[in-house]
């Protein structure tokens, strides 16, 4: 033991004590400021946590839902289009042993509608019914096994009954059907009344029904049909190898789906959802990180002079760094932890109110339990602390560097930030954004475009000091040249013009959040307009009807079709057969619409995006929707292999379709019938004769054809209204979050001015001495806040327009595969900007009024 050690310990202790005094006094003196900073940090982290948690929960449940319906089979033989002849089961079975498959389970999955006799007007619930062979499913997909009620005849008497159906708990809850009751299911025009005999092993959160395969084929009108065959592989057999061994023997309408393909399909299916939520998460993270930076940074800027003094008195950089990091770390850690907890609470509330897709309508019928993604939440807290530390450290760094005395002098806070008033960083980011925009989508996702949006946003924020430093002096000079009389306006303008760095701190949040809001408003307005236009083109008739159609049943047979067309009051009737085709096992099924088309004028029925061609001789004309063309890389004139007979199909035109995100093909009904022999149709469009209303028409139709009881009819107007309502609902939460971001930004303005009111106490004191009244002082600050917010709103709007264009012309085509024309809701944006400027002014005024109670005397006394 040397003597040095106790001496060093004493030294360290003294330094620690000093640091403690310093931090404690900072806390005592500016409790409100630190609390505000902590609260801001909490809000930021809470937003990010909440959105991420909702995202995760929904995806987890969605993934589970997919797995549940598929019973986690290791391999499946599926239909490319519609259903399979049930003899494919024996085909597969014959090859099974050689292919290394030791379990084969035939499945008939039928999408049905549940009739609600108690509430006939209600929208029918959808229910997927799986017909299984329990002896085989027990080996391959045990999770799908029906669970008879305890005491139900001992070993399960209803398992093989011809009238029993087993409902998952979610289905029981949604349909209000308990074991012992009956439910009525509709598939096409088939109606089946079944008794609920128990539950299903898996899928607590998923609406699902299971029944015997033979009973399902009979009761649901699918004799001789299967939709898939689930397979279990013997140990050590690779799925791809088994698939290759099976493929050769399969009929052309069947294909083998690998589990990876299913995962890919699921990923493709939920893509739109994830894209939307990822934007929200990005907004939340941006706003959150900015809030943390602004709050902690501002608190630290205000202490610069004190740190400078400590440096003059002999505090070394390490000590100062310690103190700065301790207080910034403490406040951001406390804020982040509180924020993470609040975020989880918020997520729970959001899931409860909006459901897993946040109102987007992507996964109807799924009520996800909350999934807490601990690693990411810890990472978010760490991010909050890291941003907080950086925000605390950057302003204080200069105070302890080479020239502490400079930091002590007046206005030095401004000179420290003045270096920011250069356009180079912004220009560099903008160049990077341009580069990113030129990149193609990565893995089918517009990641580069998102990165470009982030760059544009950062560029916009980075440009604020430079813009303020460039713009406001010119404004001030102009105003002076015009002989400005109002001292308050003059003072406010002069103040803003000379403090570009602080201006950036005040309004960066406004710029960021308003930019994202405007971008979203522009995108949604363009999108909505495009959808409304499109709805007009695709809904020319007066009345539309659809029977609960599915892979099994198109629903309406020819005789019924003719009777409908001949009903009095029907001016014209058109029928469409819709079904689903699987072109690629890794992608969700595409829609197929067979409808009357005029060979030489398809544009009369389809909203084509370009010119159409005539099919080459011997080929069948099909028209691809925009998503289909994009997803399957089809151009006009390209050949496409549709699993409908052996015809050659040529894409003769591309049309707009906002309804089927995974793509659709349309062909003439006559061609479809010729190729498939399927005479049924599922959709009815009726033109009403003069003198009849759609409502009267519908009444007549229902009276004449009781078989159509399960069909849903809507007028074209009702359909348009409904479509747009669903559209609006899917963006409801986006709006909500952007509103939150804007409020947070205004909160940032208010807290900046509250802080400034203290930091500028001496300035205010001098102005009071020189004869500026209290009210004028508040007016001056309000004007400053208003000017800066107005500038922030305008600059944010400009940035938002650019981002909106990126969303419309890059993100949308790359992730949803549809295009639209740009619409600028300028009135709405102007209104928003004006409101924002006003709110900024009010926030600044309120903040400064609350903080200037002390009066000018104390202010000047504070001078040291």
């Amino acid at each position, binding site marked *: 033991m040397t003597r040095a050690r106790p001496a060093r310990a004493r030294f360290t202790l003294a330094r620690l004590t000093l640091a403690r005094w310093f931090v404690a006094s900072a806390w005592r003196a500016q409790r409100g400021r630190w609390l505000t900073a902590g609260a801001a940090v909490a809000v930021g982290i809470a937003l990010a946590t909440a959105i991420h948690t909702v995202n995760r929960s929904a995806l987890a449940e969605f993934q589970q839902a997919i797995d549940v319906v598929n019973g986690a089979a290791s391999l499946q033989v599926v239909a490319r289009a519609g259903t399979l002849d049930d003899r494919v089961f024996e085909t597969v079975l014959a090859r099974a042993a050689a292919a290394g498959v030791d379990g084969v389970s035939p499945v008939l999955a039928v999408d049905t509608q549940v009739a609600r006799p108690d509430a006939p007007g209600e929208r029918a619930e959808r229910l997927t019914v799986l017909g299984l*062979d329990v002896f085989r499913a027990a080996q391959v997909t045990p999770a799908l096994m029906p669970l008879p009620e305890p005491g139900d005849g001992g070993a399960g008497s209803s398992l*093989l009954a011809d*009238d029993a159906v087993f409902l998952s708990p979610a289905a029981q809850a949604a349909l209000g059907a308990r074991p012992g009751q009956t439910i009525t299911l509709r598939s096409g025009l088939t109606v089946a009344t079944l008794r609920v005999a128990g539950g299903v092993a898996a899928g607590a959160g998923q609406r699902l029904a299971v029944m015997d395969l033979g009973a399902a084929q009979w009761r649901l009108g699918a004799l001789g049909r299967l939709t898939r065959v689930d397979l279990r592989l013997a140990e050590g057999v690779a799925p791809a190898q088994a698939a290759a061994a099976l493929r050769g023997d399969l009929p052309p309408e069947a294909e083998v789906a690998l589990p990876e393909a299913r995962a890919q399909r699921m990923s493709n299916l939920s893509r739109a959802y994830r894209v939307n939520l990822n934007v929200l998460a990005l907004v939340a993270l941006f706003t959150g990180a900015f809030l943390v930076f602004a709050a902690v940074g501002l608190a630290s800027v205000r202490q610069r002079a004190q740190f400078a003094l400590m440096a003059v008195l002999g505090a070394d950089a390490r000590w100062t760094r310690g103190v700065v990091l301790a207080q910034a770390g403490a406040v951001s850690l406390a804020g982040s932890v509180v924020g993470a907890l609040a975020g989880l609470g918020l997520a729970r509330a959001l899931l409860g109110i909006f459901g897993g897709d946040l109102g987007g309508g992507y996964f109807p019928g799924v009520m996800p339990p909350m999934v807490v993604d601990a690693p990411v939440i810890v990472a978010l807290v760490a991010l909050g602390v890291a941003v907080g530390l950086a925000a605390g450290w950057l302003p204080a760094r200069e105070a302890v560097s080479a020239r502490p005395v400079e930091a002590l002098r007046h206005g030095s806070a401004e000179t420290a930030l003045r270096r920011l008033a250069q356009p180079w960083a912004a220009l560099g980011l903008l160049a990077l954004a341009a580069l990113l925009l030129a990149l193609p989508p990565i893995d089918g996702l517009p990641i580069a475009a998102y990165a470009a949006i982030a760059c544009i946003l950062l560029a916009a924020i980075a440009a604020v000091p430079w813009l303020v430093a460039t713009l406001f002096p010119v404004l001030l000079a102009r105003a002076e040249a015009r002989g400005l009389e109002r001292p308050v306006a003059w003072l406010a303008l002069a103040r803003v013009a000379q403090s570009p760095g602080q201006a950036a701190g005040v309004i960066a949040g406004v710029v960021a959040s308003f930019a994202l809001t405007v971008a979203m408003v522009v995108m949604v307005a363009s999108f909505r307009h495009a959808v409304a236009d499109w709805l007009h083109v695709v809904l020319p008739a007066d009345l539309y009807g659809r029977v609960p159609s599915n892979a099994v049943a198109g629903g309406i047979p020819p005789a019924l079709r003719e009777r409908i067309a001949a009903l009095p009051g029907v001016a014209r009737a058109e029928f469409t057969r819709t079904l689903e085709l699987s072109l690629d096992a890794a992608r969700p099924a595409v829609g197929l619409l067979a409808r009357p088309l005029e060979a030489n004028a398809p544009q009369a029925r389809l909203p084509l995006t370009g010119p159409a061609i005539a099919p080459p001789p011997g080929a069948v004309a099909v028209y691809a929707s925009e998503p289909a063309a994009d997803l399957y890389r089809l151009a006009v004139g390209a050949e496409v292999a549709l699993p409908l007979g052996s015809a050659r199909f040529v894409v003769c035109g591309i049309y707009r379709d906002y309804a089927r995100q995974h793509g659709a093909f349309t062909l003439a009904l006559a061609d479809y019938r010729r190729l498939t022999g399927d005479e049924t149709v599922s959709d009815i469009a009726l033109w009403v004769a003069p003198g009849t209303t759609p409502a009267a028409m519908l009444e007549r139709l229902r009276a004449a054809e009781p078989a159509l009881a399960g069909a849903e009819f809507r007028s074209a107007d009702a359909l348009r209204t409904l479509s747009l309502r669903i559209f609006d609902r899917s963006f409801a939460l986006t709006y909500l979050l952007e509103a939150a971001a804007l409020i947070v930004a205004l909160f940032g303005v208010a807290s900046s001015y509250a802080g400034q009111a203290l930091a500028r106490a001496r300035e205010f004191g001098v102005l009071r001495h020189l004869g500026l009244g209290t009210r004028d002082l508040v007016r001056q600050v309000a004007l400053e806040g208003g000017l800066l917010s107005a500038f922030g709103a305008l600059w944010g709007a400009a940035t938002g327009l650019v981002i909106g264009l990126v969303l419309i012309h890059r993100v949308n085509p790359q992730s949803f595969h549809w295009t639209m024309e740009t619409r600028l809701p300028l009135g709405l944006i102007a209104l928003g900007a004006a409101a924002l400027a006003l709110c900024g002014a009010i926030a600044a005024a309120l903040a400064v009024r609350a903080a200037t109670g002390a009066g000018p005397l104390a202010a000047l006394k504070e001078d040291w």
Partner: protein
Amino acid sequence: MRRRALLQAVPALLLPRVASAVTYDPVDRGRAVTFPRDHGAHPGFRTEWWYLTGWLERDGAAPCGFQVTFFRSRTGHADANPSRFAPKQLLFAHAALALPENGRLIHEDRSARVGPAGVRFSETDTALAIGDWSCLRDAGSGRYAARIAGRELDLAVEIAPPGPPVLQGEGGFSQKGPRPEQASHYYSRPQLAVRGRIAGGRGAARRAWSVRGRAWLDHEWSSTLLDERAAGWDWIGINLDDGGSLMAFRIRARDGGVLWSHVARRDAQGRPRAESAPAQWTPTRWWTSPRSQARYPVGFEVTVGADRLTLEPLMDDQEIDARASTGGFYWEGAVAARVGGQPAGRGYLELTGYAAPMRL
């Protein structure tokens, strides 16, 4: 008669809870059993089985037991359903090898609806198949071929009957309880000569043998349940060394008494011996299953007239876990019979209703 796990479990499985349009054929005392028709299945009856059990000599190893059973069940599923997947008729198959060196049965089972995937029976002759598990009778030679290809056991045997079937009860009408409808149609084929190959074990541990031996086939069909008071039954079918056969069963009541008891002895020519009194069953040894915790009387002394047969199992653990197919646990094992300390015959003992009804 018989018995069987099915009498306990399958009817429960197959009986619909709601009134069904399905009506089952009744067992009729006056119905004559005729061949070859009655080698085939009787789908109008609720349950039916072909039960093949026997002892096999292996080259270079101790004798072992085997069992191959096909059960047929008529469910309550509507006849009107035209779907070929409609589960109106089910087939179950159990196969077991009792290798004494193994200490317990190698057992596998299959369950399937009749119709698709080669699951079938014939109404004109014994022709049963669940995929590649089969039991077929050749009409010309009268021989049976049984083939079981499982994960852990493989069996291919050819079976030659020495004479015509032995009709049980009154010309094939076998009373099972105090009420007249508690009965079945029932015939047996004792002293069957078996030749073939068996294999048991998994992967590298699998071993195969050529085998020959003597077996017993029961074919029985019925629509009626056991008496409500029944707890289970004990059954034996013994190929006697003198060429004769012994079949005896008793239906045990829940209260511990005996509801119904029957014994039938035949000489080498198949002529029945009139018994003055029912057989007396006295357990001599008990064994407790580590799986089901059921306690089975694996050793018996059965008194038939003046003879006292002592039954000793090939091994104690011959319990079958049929929870995945017909349901529950039962004991079905190879036993050797001695009279006065001298070997007198070999056959199978079946013990049901000892395990508490279990459900998965």
